[in-house]
C-alpha cells in the first residue's frame, strides 16, 4: 500500500527574485508522530534543498521554529500533522514581522526592545559573590516564576494585532520580561524600567486582546503581565501625585 501523504503549502520568498511571497505546494508522507517541522525537514532533505527556515532543539525550548500553521502562530516542532485532518497545511512565516527569506523572519526589533526594558537584575550596589546567594523564598520565586518561562519564540507578537498595526509597540514578551524582573525580589530596577514600560508604546498601548496568552507555548501569560504592569504604573502614578514629597 502506498504511504499516505499530506499536502504542505509553504510560503516562499526569495529576496531579489520575488517581489512578494508566493505559496509552493509539496506532497510529504503523512506519519502519525510527525510534526510540521519533520515535514519541512523532509522537504529540505528530499524534495527541495532551497527551502529556508530556522530550527534547532526540536523539543519546544529553543524558540527557533515558530511559524504560522494554518494561520495560527505555532512552534512547528510541537504542531503534529495528525492535528490537521484537512489533508492540507499552510505554513507561513510568523505574521507581523519583516520576512528575510521563505519562513525566516527578522526579529531584531524584539532584541532591541528586550534590551530597552533592562531585562537583567539591576542593583544599586552589587553584592560580592563571596557574600553568598540572595535568599529567596519559594513564594517570592512564585511571584515571577511564570514570566521567566518565555523562550522568545515570537508567537505572541505574531498573534498581537496591536503589534501588527503599530510596530513600535513594546509587545507582549518584552513587557512580560520587564515585569518578570520588576517582580524579582533580588531586583532594584523598577524605577529605571518605568520609563520604558510606562511610555506611549509601552504597556498602555496594549488593548488586552489576549491572544498573546492564547498562543504562548509555555503558558507565560504575557497578557496578565502587561495588565499587571498597568496596575503597577497606575499605582506609582497615584503615589507620585498624592505623595509628591515621598519616595515612590
Amino acid at each position, binding site marked *: 500500500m502506498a504511504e499516505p501523504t499530506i499536502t504542505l503549502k509553504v510560503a516562499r520568498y526569495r529576496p531579489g527574485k520575488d517581489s512578494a*511571497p508566493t505559496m509552493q505546494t509539496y506532497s510529504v508522507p503523512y506519519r502519525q508522530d510527525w510534526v510540521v517541522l519533520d515535514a519541512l525537514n523532509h522537504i529540505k532533505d528530499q524534495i527541495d534543498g532551497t527551502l529556508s527556515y530556522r530550527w534547532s532543539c526540536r523539543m519546544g525550548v529553543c524558540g527557533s521554529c515558530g511559524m504560522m500553521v494554518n494561520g495560527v502562530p505555532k512552534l512547528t516542532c510541537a504542531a503534529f500533522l495528525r492535528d490537521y485532518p484537512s489533508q492540507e497545511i499552510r505554513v507561513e512565516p510568523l*505574521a507581523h514581522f519583516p*520576512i528575510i527569506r521563505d519562513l525566516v523572519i*527578522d526579529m531584531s526589533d524584539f532584541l532591541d526592545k528586550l534590551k530597552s526594558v533592562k531585562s537583567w537584575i539591576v542593583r544599586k550596589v552589587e553584592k560580592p559573590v563571596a557574600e553568598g546567594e540572595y535568599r529567596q523564598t519559594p513564594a517570592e520565586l512564585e511571584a515571577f516564576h511564570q514570566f521567566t518561562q518565555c523562550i522568545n519564540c515570537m508567537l505572541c507578537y505574531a498573534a498581537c494585532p496591536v503589534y*501588527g498595526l503599530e510596530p513600535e509597540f513594546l509587545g507582549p514578551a518584552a513587557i512580560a520580561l520587564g515585569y518578570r524582573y520588576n517582580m524579582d525580589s533580588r531586583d532594584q530596577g523598577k524605577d529605571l524600567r518605568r520609563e520604558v514600560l510606562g511610555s506611549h508604546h509601552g504597556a498602555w498601548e496594549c488593548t488586552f486582546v*489576549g491572544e498573546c496568552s492564547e498562543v504562548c507555548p509555555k503558558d507565560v501569560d504575557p*497578557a496578565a503581565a502587561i495588565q*499587571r504592569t498597568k496596575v503597577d504604573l497606575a499605582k506609582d502614578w497615584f503615589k507620585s501625585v498624592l505623595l509628591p514629597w515621598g519616595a515612590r
Partner: protein
Amino acid sequence: MNGTAVRPDKSKLHYSKMPPTWWLKKPAYLFFMLRELSSVFIAVFLVILLAQIHQLTKGPEAYAAFVQKLSSPGWIVFHITALLFALLHSVTWFQSTAVVMPLRLGERELPRNLVLALNIGAWVAVSAVILILFLALRG
C-alpha cells in the same frame, strides 16, 4: 559597533501590512472588537440618561414627553442592544479583573474561574439588592 548586533539589510526584507479587515479573520479578534464597541453603546446610553435627568428640571410635561419619545421601537431596540453590550462589557471586565488582580492563597494563585465566579456572584447580588430597593421604593 560595541553593544550592538549586526542586523539584516532592511531594503531586502519583505514587509506586509495588516488588511483593514484583520478583525474579521479570527473569532477572537472579532470578539475583541465587539468588546471595544460595547463602550460606544454604554456611552450613548449614559448621554441619554443624562438628558433624561436634565428633562426633570424642565417640569413634569417635558419629562413625560421625553419618556414618550424613548418608548418608540427604535429606542427600545437601541436600549436592548445597549443592555446586551453592557452585559458583555461587565462579564469581560470581570474576566479581566481575574487576570489583572490574582488572588493568592499562600503560595498558590486561586483559579481564575473561581475569581471570576466570585466577582460575578457579587455583581449579581448587588444588582439584586438594587432591584429590590427600586421595586420597594416604587411600590
